[in-house]
């Protein structure tokens, strides 16, 4: 089945419901600031790579310098954010989304 034929008012009703608003808020309040954060963190890295080369060249351990550690931290943060998002989605988003989906599909069948 597809819902393209369904009465459009069902969607407006769901959209207005407090449960859906909660789902939307939980989604946006997590993903929007996090997107801003990792973009700023990445741009900081690129900007320092362009303008702070002396700083990037400071050796920390043997030949391992700030630049290498900063770069590796970008990997760590990417892996961490991906993992954290999947946890957030499973715990906070999926249960509401599943419930709403079942409700709408029952209503429109």
């Amino acid at each position, binding site marked *: 089945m597809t819902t393209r034929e369904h009465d459009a008012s069902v969607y407006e009703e769901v959209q207005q419901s407090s449960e859906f608003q909660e789902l939307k808020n939980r989604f946006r309040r997590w993903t929007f600031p996090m997107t801003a954060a990792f973009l700023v963190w990445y741009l900081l890295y690129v900007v320092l790579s362009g303008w702070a080369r002396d700083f990037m060249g400071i050796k920390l351990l043997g030949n391992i310098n700030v630049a290498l550690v900063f770069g590796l931290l970008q990997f760590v943060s990417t892996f961490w954010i991906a993992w954290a998002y999947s946890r957030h989605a499973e715990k906070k988003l999926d249960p509401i*989304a599943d419930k709403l989906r079942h409700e709408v599909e029952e209503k429109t069948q």
Partner: protein
Amino acid sequence: MKSETLATILFLAFVALTLVITFYASRQTKTAADYYAGGRSFSGVQNGLAIGGDYMSAASFLGIAGIIALSGYDGFLYSIGFLVAWLVALLLVAELMRNSGKFTMADVLAFRMSPRPVRTAAGVSTITVSIFYLLAQMVGAGALVGLLLGITSPAGKAWTIVGVGALMIVYVVFGGMKGTTWVQIVKAVLLMTGAALITLLVLGHYGFNLSSLLGDAAAQSGKNGQFLIPGLKYGTEAQGLAGKIDLISLGLALVLGTAGLPHILIRFYTVPTAKDARKSVLWGIGIIGTFYLLTLVLGFGAAALVGGKAIAASDKAGNTAAPLLAKAIGETFLGTTGGTILLALIGAVAFATILAVVAGLTLASSSSFSHDLYAHVFKRGKATEREEVLVARVSAFVIGAVAIGLGILAQGQNVAFLVALAFAVAASGNLPAILYSLFWKRFNTAGATSAIYGGLISALVLVIFSPVVSGSETALFKTAAFDWFPLSNPGIISIPLGFIFGWLGTIMSKEYNAAKYAEIEVRSLTGVGAEKAVDH
């Protein structure tokens, strides 16, 4: 046995295996959902591997290892943009697209807008981005065969391009998304295995001491301390301020382009649910991230064990750094035979890589041609499923043939900039349209077409007047000089322009449909009415 012969045998084995897969896939490809989306029946892990296979092009494997080997740290810097970009896809795009679209990027846009203008714009942009990317890979294949198999005559290179193109056409025309996805999976496993093997040998050679590997790499590169910090390739001190702004511009295009690349976006449709789409991106991030960590060792390893001079002598761009390293490390551990075997292995993997990526691009552009332009624009949504799949197959053939022709014509030209350009166009045109469409209630037809055409045209115009096209030693046209735009990468201007055009177009049009936005918002977040997997 010579390593060229062994590489050819290994590569032919890969071709044979993928052709068998394509044959089986073709027998299961009947409906449009089969052809465009592999029946939506791949698991998250399978699609995650395929995402890696689609994304890790020869440009990232040989190219990044080469940049690291010759310019040190800057190659690593480049790879990080490619990885972080996946967070945009994971957090904002993958699941919502899976829930609200069907086969192409345009499905999401056409959902609540006037379908014909929006699909035309999305189709034009999809085909433009894919052809740029495709052309870069095809020319790369011609160059690579010369380096790896010792074929250096223009005719030999042209035949290689014809061969790669013909195989890619067979995969896509017969195997559709199902066949192409399996080709990506096999390639991803081979590439990861090959890269991991060489990495382990290199690290083993240095007693798993990263610092001594880095020290050796810096010493043998001929660049000393400079080798381990940014600035040898991007935004060099000699280029001054423009060079550094160019670096930021490149970074922006890389990080924002991925989530707008059509051949990546259609991967999200190959799984049964949005949760599987999420899982596949998580796997994709794990695989791609690991791969770039491996290339870091491969690049520095090549600098250390082969040496900057020898690499530059073999290929100015450093594309042979990884194969040369395979040979050197093989000889260190296992003597001449070992060197021959590892070189052959990496050569074969490199070809498998090119083949898989070009197949993914051909599929994306032919899907968009058939589903968006033919079925919805020309036929106004009245094409039958059979017709649509037939047109998709014919257009895959035609696009493949065009790519072969252009690839042969562009042989020997410096077209590496086309990959960065494809990312810039995707970030400037497609990404604003997708994000506005998913998150902005007021967004409408005029906004979507303005974002796509505005972003696409700004990126193209800026590149035409940039130093990569004219006025420099490495430009496409060395003798002409119409390079009034100082940056090689247009992103820093064209990406904001794409967003501004999309906003302006929207507010200047009165069109506004609250009911349709309610529908896409509810559907994208909950998965109500999302397309289901096909049972066979």
